[in-house]
């Protein structure tokens, strides 16, 4: 009996902590347990999207846009892309016609060009709190001191409370402590063969690793190769590539032992 009551006490304490940390808000948006559930992740989540190099900027931004695309609705019609004005020289500015090619109506997108990191964080918080904003994507090309654990925790709580998702796109191998619910590592991948012209590139393809957070109950599913259909993500089966053994996590160009890889990068 005593053991049971101890269990009960523990459970109630955990529930209280969860409540304090606003976990129920995340939990009640039940994330589907089938593996590639990130096809349509619910809103109200803080994501971090890392890519290794500045030159992979297209892949990282498009992955964030792919997620955000699913969150746009009649009630939440807006998508904010925020970046520092000085970064735009380096990584370019989001291009309206390109957004349209990607499948996002440019009219829904508002581009914010901020002067300094404090303004950027302020603008993010302000935008997340708005109930008409589907997602906020912050594109941060340079290391930012102001974006520490506390700041990301604030963003996380705000996202959870308002239901609009936040995507922080960052570059490099460094990983700082953050309160993000999911941390993705995104790399560009060679596109699928173009059915009309073998020499021409086709649509978007990414290698995606989930470095933090869990999708559903499967712990092993941490790596995927994804295609963009113009409307959503589609997984690419690794059998398609003859040089790679079928099945498992061995994907073309993927890093082996993703868990170990993550640990080595943590420092």
């Amino acid at each position: 009996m005593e053991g049971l009551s101890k269990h009960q006490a523990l459970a109630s304490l955990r529930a209280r902590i969860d409540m304090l940390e606003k976990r129920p808000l995340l939990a009640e948006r039940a994330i589907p347990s089938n593996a590639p559930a990130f096809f349509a992740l619910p809103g109200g989540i803080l994501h971090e999207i890392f890519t290794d190099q500045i030159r992979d900027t297209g892949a990282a931004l498009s992955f964030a846009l792919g997620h955000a695309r699913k969150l746009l609705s009649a009630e939440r019609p807006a998508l904010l892309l925020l970046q520092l004005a000085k970064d735009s020289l380096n990584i370019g500015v989001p291009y309206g016609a390109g957004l349209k090619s990607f499948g996002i109506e440019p009219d829904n997108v508002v581009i914010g060009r901020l002067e300094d990191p404090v303004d950027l964080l302020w603008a993010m918080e302000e935008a997340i709190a708005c109930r008409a904003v589907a997602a906020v994507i912050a594109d941060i090309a340079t290391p930012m001191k102001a974006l520490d654990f506390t700041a990301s925790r604030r963003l996380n709580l705000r996202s959870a409370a308002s239901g609009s998702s936040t995507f922080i796109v960052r570059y490099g191998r460094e990983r700082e402590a953050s309160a993000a619910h999911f941390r993705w590592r995104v790399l560009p991948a060679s596109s699928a063969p173009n059915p009309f012209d073998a020499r021409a590139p086709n649509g978007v393809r990414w290698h995606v690793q989930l470095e933090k957070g869990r999708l559903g109950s499967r712990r092993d599913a941490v790596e995927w190769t994804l295609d963009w259909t113009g409307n959503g993500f589609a997984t690419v089966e690794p059998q398609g590539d003859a040089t790679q053994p079928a099945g498992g996590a061995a994907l073309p160009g993927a890093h082996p032992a993703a868990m170990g890889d993550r640990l080595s990068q943590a420092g």
Partner: protein
Amino acid sequence: MDEAAAHAGLVLSQSLSDARAICPNLEAREIDRGYIAQAFADFADWHSNASPIVSVLTDQAEWGDLILDITGVSHLFGGEARMLDRLMNRLAGLGIAVSGAIAPSVGAAWALAHFAMPQVIEGDMEAVLAPLPVAGLRLEAAQISALNQLGLKRIGQLFDYDRRALQARFGATLLLKLDQARGFIEERVTPRLPLAEYYTERRFAEPIGLMDDVLMTARDLSFQLSGRLEGEGLGAQSFHLFLYRVDHKVMTLSVNASRATRDALHITRLFTNRAERLLGEYDAGFGIDMIRLAASSVLPLGETQIGVFDVRDGTADLDQLYDRMASRLGPLAIMRNKFVNTHIPEQAVKLEPAIARTADDPHAAPDPVLKRPLRLLPQPEPVTVALAEVPDGPPPGMVWRRINYRFVKASGPERVGVEWWSLEKPLVTSEAPEGEPADIAINDGIGLTRDYYIAEDEGGRRFWLFREGLYGRGEQRWYLHGFFA
């Protein structure tokens, strides 16, 4: 004419040769009336720190007559007499010869300022006006000389004169000016600065200094103003907060809303954001003793139904969000995409402030068939490219920012020609010397043609790059322009 000139023996309306004879080192210059009138107008605006309604009377002279409506202002200076003293002293301190008067009518004040000692009068204007010359009524020169011929030299003589005879002989303007000077007919002045019809203000017994207090007052004033606007079914797009400092300076805080509003909390939030931004420039000096909140760009705004029939489409929320962001970050920080009807990629989309959106051009929507990159570099960056294997073929690789890329897949070219019908829009690349592209365009019409290629490297990065100029015709330059997803 100033004292130095009078001392030298010069008089008004003297011929230039006489003046030169009297004063041999005289330097004559033509008067630049437009410039002086403009300078005087700016000078008049400066006086808005004393009163919001400042006007220049131009019926007698282009400049020189400054009218201030000091209704409800004089207490800031400790009474009307002290206000007059103070305003005149500060002008005298600047080395300006000045005379002034405070009177209940514009005409009386003008007459007193021109023909009497500086003074403040109220109530019985006729007694004060009576001994002044008729020129004090701002009459035309012909009217004045005619009156003088009849022996009517003082204003007081006109009071008891038969009005019909006066009108018959001197025209209706004489009677009008006379009645205006006596205050029987109201004379209106045109304020130089736009006048806010809707405003609320609060005065403080003790000057306040803290920004928080100012914002708290702004909040109270917003609620008052909002109530007033609501009563008349109006909303406003611009709000101005005037902070009147004890040392007669005015600080202005202005915010704009993208759509007309009267939501007091929203207005307060805009001011709070704006104030946070300008905190460094905020200086209360010796304190603020009056705050005024004014609304301009007032538009009709219907009643809003809140509750059952509320449609949550979010557009109102978004407009308020952009207002708030723009109030702190500046209007150029929050932009939306606007398509322009042109083929030239960097000109086809321009960014415009989200709070000042203009109508879209229906012909400007991008062609969905054309593939466009997700990101565009602000300026195309020159890259080094190995020679293409076939004419007009895609390049096998490039060096960009000192890194070598080898392309495994490529498609193209997509040719973007110069828009011959609008040569004032040359294609500008980062290295093109000024003036040269337009010359080439006129010479053969091909110099600015671009061939765009989509190229994918081994790592799967997709670039958008172009060759400037046609293959085999002179020097070719390659540029990287954007990144695909």
